[in-house]
């Protein structure tokens, strides 16, 4: 029988390469947006409205991926949209990871009342439909980039908390924790120096997955018109606009959708790939 493990490994590393390359491309576009975008993403030209992409009849080569109903360049809006998407992914992802992991570590290591209170909170949070919760929170704290990030953190910390709590509980039973305790190390120090580093790979894999989720949440909020502003070039906002004019100009929906799809897929594949990398059985 061929070695199944090497096949799994080969596929996993191909996955890491493909998703990593796409994300690098998106990150590059986000960083260099003002220099590489062919047009101003907000500039309207009502005489150039709903121009098709370059390969279709009637296209203007100046607008590679066509224009939307207000004559804004689709490609430039996608490139600038990458900035917003990656900002949300990075900031919301990291903040969610910090809050959730901290609570998870405390619950899993300290146990007792801390654990009971935190676990009950997780239960309560899990009883809300996340999308509805997000929309409700944005209605409460107002639209804007910071609000979106806050909303994602408030809703999604449970993802980290549940997993990290279980992991911290496992690690606490290990001999190295017992010997650190006997050696007289304080609880804070054990948590920070001993358990923390061992839970880090799990957190890293979850963080990658969470960044993909953050991109989606931003798109959903833009879609129901609760994101940043209707004018700002967000992928979700473009998709919402494209959905309404789908019969007249499919490209306004299709291109941002493809980019969003690949980005979310890549974050997820990267996260799964990392999880396998850190899995001692496969390693």
């Amino acid at each position, binding site marked *: 029988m061929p070695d199944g493990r090497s096949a799994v490994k080969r596929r996993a590393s191909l996955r890491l390469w493909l998703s990593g390359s796409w994300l690098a491309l998106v990150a590059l576009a986000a960083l260099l947006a003002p220099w590489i975008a062919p047009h101003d993403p907000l500039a309207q030209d009502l005489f150039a409205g709903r121009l098709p992409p370059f390969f279709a009849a009637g296209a203007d080569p100046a607008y590679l991926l066509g224009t939307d109903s207000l004559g804004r360049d689709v490609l430039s809006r996608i490139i600038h949209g990458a900035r917003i998407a990656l900002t949300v992914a990075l900031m919301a992802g990291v903040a969610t990871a910090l809050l959730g992991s901290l609570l998870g570590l405390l619950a899993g290591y300290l146990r007792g009342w801390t654990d009971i209170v935190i676990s009950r909170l997780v239960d309560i949070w899990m009883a809300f439909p996340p999308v509805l919760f997000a929309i409700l929170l944005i*209605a409460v704290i107002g639209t804007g980039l910071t609000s979106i990030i806050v909303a994602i953190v408030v809703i999604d910390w449970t993802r980290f908390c549940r997993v990290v709590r279980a992991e911290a509980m496992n690690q606490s039973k290990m001999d190295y924790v017992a010997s650190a305790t006997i050696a007289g190390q304080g609880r804070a120090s054990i948590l920070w120096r001993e358990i923390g580093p061992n839970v880090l790979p799990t957190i890293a894999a979850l963080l990658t997955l969470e960044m993909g989720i953050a991109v989606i949440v931003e798109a959903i909020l833009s879609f129901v018109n609760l994101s940043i502003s209707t004018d700002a070039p967000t992928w979700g906002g473009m998709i919402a606009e494209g959905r309404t004019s789908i019969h007249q100009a499919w490209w306004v929906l299709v291109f941002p*959708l493809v980019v969003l799809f690949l980005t979310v897929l890549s974050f997820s594949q990267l996260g799964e790939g990392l999880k396998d990398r850190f899995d001692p059985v496969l390693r």
Partner: protein
Amino acid sequence: MILLRALLTRLATTVVTLFGAAVIVFFVIRVVPGNPIAMMLPPGATDEDIARLSAHYGLDRSIPEQFAIWFAGVLHGDFGASISLRQPVMPLVLGRLPATLELAIFALVLAVMIGGAAALTGTRLRNTRTEAAIDIANGVGLSVPDFLWALVLILLFGILVPVFHISGRISPSADLPFVTQFYVFESILRLRFDLWWDLLQHMFMPALALAIPLAAIIGQLLKQSLKETMHLDYVVLARTKGYAENKVIVSEALPNAVLPTLTLIGVQFTFLIGGTVIIERLFSYEGLGNMAIDAVINRDLPLIQGIVLVFALLFTVVNLVVDMTYALLNPRLRHA
């Protein structure tokens, strides 16, 4: 005895969860900026009018007082009155809930069918290219959330090859004989298969969007458990007895491999129900989630509270049922 005690503990935590959910929703939405009363009155309304109407809806009292009144009502099944629709919340919510439940259950059935078929095919054709293709499809399916699948489906089967309806729950021209809101169920009882078919054609796209990620998870986990079971002695014995491979998989391996998947389906079903909110919006499906988004946009506090609580109740009940089923199915727990 242990089972009974576990059950009681479980019930108690469920009650705590629901109460906590009620408290959080109530206080979160009291911070909503924008006066819902001012929004429902015509522009010429005086401050006196606003004050009078606020008093009518109890919005002039202190927040803890409002909570006590509202919560006492909830315990009697009275969720107050919707501000934007000017009707009691309870009948409004109950009127929309069946549409959402039918959609979610249909999606669950689709997910089990697709995921189960993928797992069985993958096990039957293990170590072939087909299995590799199924693995990749599963990986993509669970990486991309329902919201994106919905948009992809709208593009493919609503626009490119328009074979399915992508808006609404039933054709507007249909004249409806229904007395309940469980349209799909009632259309079968009334033998109105024309309406039943129309409903399914409307439900298929949103249900499939909800089903794809769950189908992928089912396919992946069930295939993994099946593969592990296939190496167990009793399965090997069945094969040496000369049973056909299909029979070995379906009647020997499957019953023992299915338990982890069942548990997972229960947990994932609540995520699926949560997904209906945005999916209903995308497909203009008249369910609870669509109503919830309108309620948030209209700042309709009583309606938001009612809907969120009904969702929370649904989630906790599903989880409770799953846990109990698991305890009953698992012989180690049953005989403990």
